């Protein structure tokens, strides 16, 4: 079986990630604050250290470990919107449902109003400035679309938000591990959300967020055990445990620490170039056809490792079934949990077929996918 659905979850994982998870499960649990650590560095500290190195984060206590991007986005969106009736936020149409759904639940319950901008409007800073109101509490943007690979100019938007003292949440779910992200170069109003199971090569159920020093801390959404300050009946207000309640996923974070080490060793830009080269090769292999629509990224040549297409008279779902059952290739079809972008690019309501590769994807695998697309184009 060939796996080309790495934008959902990367596979395979480096063998050292699997070993790290295995080793962790075979050791006496070593939770910070709960067991006296006999090792040089406990797993959570090691993971935080690796994340810090990776994103150039100096204050490791500002790295909050969570089960992933969906959890992180929900946490920070609900946290920032809390206690602000009639608050306003800005987002883009390329976001994932892990942004749209918490925003819309808040809109339903708390009168949060939402402004959706198109990528073109995001690129035009003036449109963003115009959309900002006195009640704007935060802006939440995807760094890279999981459908087209469009990369938004987060640095410029973050700078604009800093001038207006508005926190900006950047969803780096698709970009982390494929594009360099340097927190040192970003203003202090940044909240950076990442997941472990995609480009960072870690296990599912891992991820986190970084909260910049200029973001006013919000009340914790979850409260519970932290292993320290057990005398307190409220969540201790020290980071990171202010936002980390309950027993942590130690095997997962052991794997994530190793995944990040692997990605750094190979090199983020090397991985990004590899993915881009493969997808450019795929595009070159496909014979030109009026029946084929490729959903290209806006304003950038780098696709973020995804290639979305559709073929006239074929439902994306049928194409996915043919890929999987007739050719043993797994691709992703449909809306990819990002409904609004399809209305924007014209692929609503059926969605697209998405091919996404990883560092481990080979040229031969991509060539096979190209042959399938060409066969589909001939079959109609």
């Amino acid at each position, binding site marked *: 079986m060939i796996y080309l659905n790495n934008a959902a979850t990367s596979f395979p994982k480096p063998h050292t990630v699997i070993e790290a998870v295995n080793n962790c499960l075979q050791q006496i649990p070593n939770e910070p604050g709960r067991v006296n650590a006999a090792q040089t560095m406990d797993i959570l500290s090691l993971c935080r250290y690796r994340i810090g190195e990776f994103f150039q984060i100096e204050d490791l206590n500002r790295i909050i470990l969570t089960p992933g991007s969906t959890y992180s986005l929900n946490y920070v969106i609900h946290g920032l919107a809390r206690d602000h009736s009639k608050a306003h936020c800005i987002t883009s149409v390329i976001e994932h449902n892990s942004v749209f759904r918490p925003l819309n639940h808040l809109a339903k319950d708390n009168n949060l109003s939402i402004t959706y901008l198109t990528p073109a409007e995001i690129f035009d800073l003036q449109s963003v400035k115009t959309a900002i109101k006195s009640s704007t509490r935060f802006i939440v943007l995807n760094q890279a679309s999981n459908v087209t690979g469009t990369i938004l100019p987060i640095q410029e938007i973050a700078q604009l938000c800093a001038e207006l003292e508005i926190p900006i949440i950047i969803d780096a779910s698709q970009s982390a591990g494929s594009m360099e992200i340097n927190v040192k170069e970003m203003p202090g109003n940044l909240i950076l959300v990442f997941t472990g199971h995609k480009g960072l090569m870690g296990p599912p159920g891992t991820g986190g967020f970084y909260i910049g020093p200029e973001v006013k801390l919000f009340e914790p959404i979850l409260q519970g055990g932290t292993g320290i300050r057990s005398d307190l009946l409220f969540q201790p207000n020290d980071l990171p445990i202010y936002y980390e309640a309950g027993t942590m996923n130690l095997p997962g974070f052991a794997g994530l620490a190793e995944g990040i080490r692997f990605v750094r060793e190979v090199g983020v830009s090397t991985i990004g170039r590899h993915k881009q080269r493969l997808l450019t090769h795929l595009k070159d292999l496909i014979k030109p056809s009026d029946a084929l629509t490729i959903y290209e990224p806006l304003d950038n040549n780098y696709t973020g490792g995804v290639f979305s297409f559709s073929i006239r008279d074929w439902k994306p*779902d049928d194409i996915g079934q043919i890929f999987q*059952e007739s050719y043993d290739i797994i691709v992703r079809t449909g809306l990819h949990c990002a409904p609004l972008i399809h209305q924007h690019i014209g692929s609503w309501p059926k969605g697209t077929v998405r091919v996404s590769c990883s560092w481990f994807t080979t040229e031969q695998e991509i060539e096979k996918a190209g042959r399938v697309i060409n066969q589909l184009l001939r079959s109609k």
Partner: protein
Amino acid sequence: MRVVQVETVEDCFDGSFIKEISLSEAISVEFIKKMGEGNSLEYFPDFPRPFFRIEKKNFYQIKGVLKSRSIRVIFNRQCNSACIESLVSFINNLF
């Protein structure tokens, strides 16, 4: 040929719903032809394992691949559990 299991795959936003039907035997050409009788059948033989679509208008669309042991059925939104049972019974009595 018997239906082994019927699993829900997805409830679609247009009201239709998708079921995965597991079969006791691999899908043969004869099975496809019988399922297609009286319905609209499309057969695509050019893939290593040919793909087929069968549409029973206003009820469902069946999609599958030759030699596979399952089919995917998209039931229209007006279908209910009786439609599913009817299809299962039809398959069970095909051969």
